[in-house]
């Protein structure tokens, strides 16, 4: 179990060597975040991390999950230190790749995108109250459709759920430096979008710098639109509020897709109930067998 409060004190965060220097891009895989990463990396004083660190989905989250043993007993990190101390030590550990990268470059700010980080956006926000968080949103129907097509292995339901959970988590965050923008808007008019975003991130740059960054976005080919199918229909049904929030056109799924989506969700709900029921019956049976065996051996 994680600490009940994930927020590292701003004062403690101030001890960090990368205090106020990080920009995290939070986007579900397949949202086009790599384009924004490259664009921001061209800004004077900024550098884009050339590879994802995966430090939250493969590091920080597992540490924080060991804060308390919960029902398993007192075995946990909470015996060693208070929550703020754990958050501070974890922040120091997470800082290491960013600190090393900044030392290798002459940059003052670093931009990073790890596709899995959005799933742990609350941990990113909690450990880095001083960082800038940019949520990049692409139409969830497109994202879910792509993530449930080869070579990706997610089912339509999983892919839709991923996009919905990701966006909901980021929207629930209270963070002083959180920004969101739509991929479609960025690609349509990168100059206008970047002209608004870049100063908000704390960069003081001229129009030429914006134009260079916009050119990086514009130079990439447009993202193709695919048939959204069942995955898209699930997003429309379950994540309608999100599509509305981000101002996407609604009710685009055709009737057969909606029927298939409802069928998918109904079956998966029944399977989950069945699994839970089966596990419970098996547990009771095992307990009974042990009791009988014990009684017989006595």
């Amino acid at each position, binding site marked *: 179990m994680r600490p009940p409060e994930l927020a590292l004190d701003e004062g403690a965060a101030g001890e960090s060597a990368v205090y106020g220097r990080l920009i995290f891009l939070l986007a579900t895989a397949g949202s086009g975040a790599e384009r924004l990463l490259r664009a921001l990396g061209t800004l004077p004083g900024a550098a884009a991390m050339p590879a994802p660190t995966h430090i939250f989905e493969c590091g920080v989250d597992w540490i924080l999950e060991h804060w308390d043993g919960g029902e398993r007993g007192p*075995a946990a990190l909470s015996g060693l230190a208070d929550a703020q101390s754990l958050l501070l030590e974890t922040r120091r550990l997470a800082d290491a790749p960013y600190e090393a990268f900044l030392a290798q470059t002459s940059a003052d700010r670093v931009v990073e995108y790890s596709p899995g980080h959005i799933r742990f956006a609350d941990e990113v926000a909690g450990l880095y109250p001083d960082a800038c968080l940019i949520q990049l949103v692409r139409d969830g129907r497109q994202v879910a459709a792509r993530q449930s097509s080869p070579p990706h292995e997610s089912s339509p339901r999983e892919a839709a759920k991923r996009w919905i959970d990701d966006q909901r988590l980021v929207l629930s965050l209270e963070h002083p430096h959180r920004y969101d923008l739509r991929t479609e808007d960025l690609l349509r008019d990168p100059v206008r979008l970047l002209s608004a975003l870049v100063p908000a991130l704390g960069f003081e740059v001229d129009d030429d710098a914006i134009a260079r960054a916009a050119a990086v976005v514009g130079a990439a080919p447009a993202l193709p639109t695919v048939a959204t199918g069942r995955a898209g229909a699930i997003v429309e049904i379950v994540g309608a509020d999100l599509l509305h929030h981000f101002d996407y056109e609604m009710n685009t799924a055709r009737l057969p897709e909606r029927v298939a989506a409802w069928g998918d969700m109904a079956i998966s709900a029944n399977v989950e109930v069945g699994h839970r029921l089966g596990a419970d019956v098996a547990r009771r049976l095992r307990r009974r067998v042990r009791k009988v065996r014990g009684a017989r051996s006595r």
Partner: protein
Amino acid sequence: MSEAPYASPFEGRVIFVLGSRRTGTTWLQELLLAHPAVVTVPTVEVEPGRLDPSETVIMGALEAVWLNAHNADSEGLPAFLEHDEIVAVMRRFCDGLFARARDTYKPSAEWFLEKSPSNIARLPLITSLYPDAWFIHVVRDGRDAVRSLMDSPMAPRTVADAAAEWVALLDDLQRYRHLLRRFRQVRYEAMLGDPVAAAADLFQWLGLAGSDEVLQAVEERSKRQVARFGATGPIGPGKWMQLPAHERARVLDIAGDWLVELGYIDAG
């Protein structure tokens, strides 16, 4: 020359107590804590007189970072840090938390003792972070360990599972033994026979002065009932005979080789 991955405040002063569950590792920890220089997370008094172990599982918490450190896709931590640097960062993390625990529980202590049962399976990670540590392995008759585990609240599903767990950790220890530069193995049954002598021997090996005062404290602590999880019967070896015959046979099937190897039964 420094043996630790960086200038650690605990260089050469971390003790890992290793052993399967229900082999007396918590009790040994209690004995070693009699020394004023040694600190760890204390046992938890869940009710008067009942002390349950409190394990940090810190090495388990670092497993994902360790996995990240071995990313072979030119991503993750190795894309930005050398392996030695990653190890140093992880050690700093542990030392930082150990230091906070020391400051809370025994500020004058200079040594930290870490004990979590599954640490044996994590020895490649532990020895990378703490090549300068001292490792003490507690070994107990596997049949007694299995019986005790099956009587505890964290009993596995079957006796076979419990025996397999005991065997698996011994297999792991054998596999990773070459990584342990400072290693001692102690028998639970011998500790039980003379806990003061066992502790004194370990203090001497660790280079810690075992004064009369310390040994008296060991004697007092040896009487504490730790990690019994509600059991009330007498403490002692040989209680495996209470297991039903078919379960004893099952344990022998699975753990027989190790029981012979460790001298708990004859090969015949």
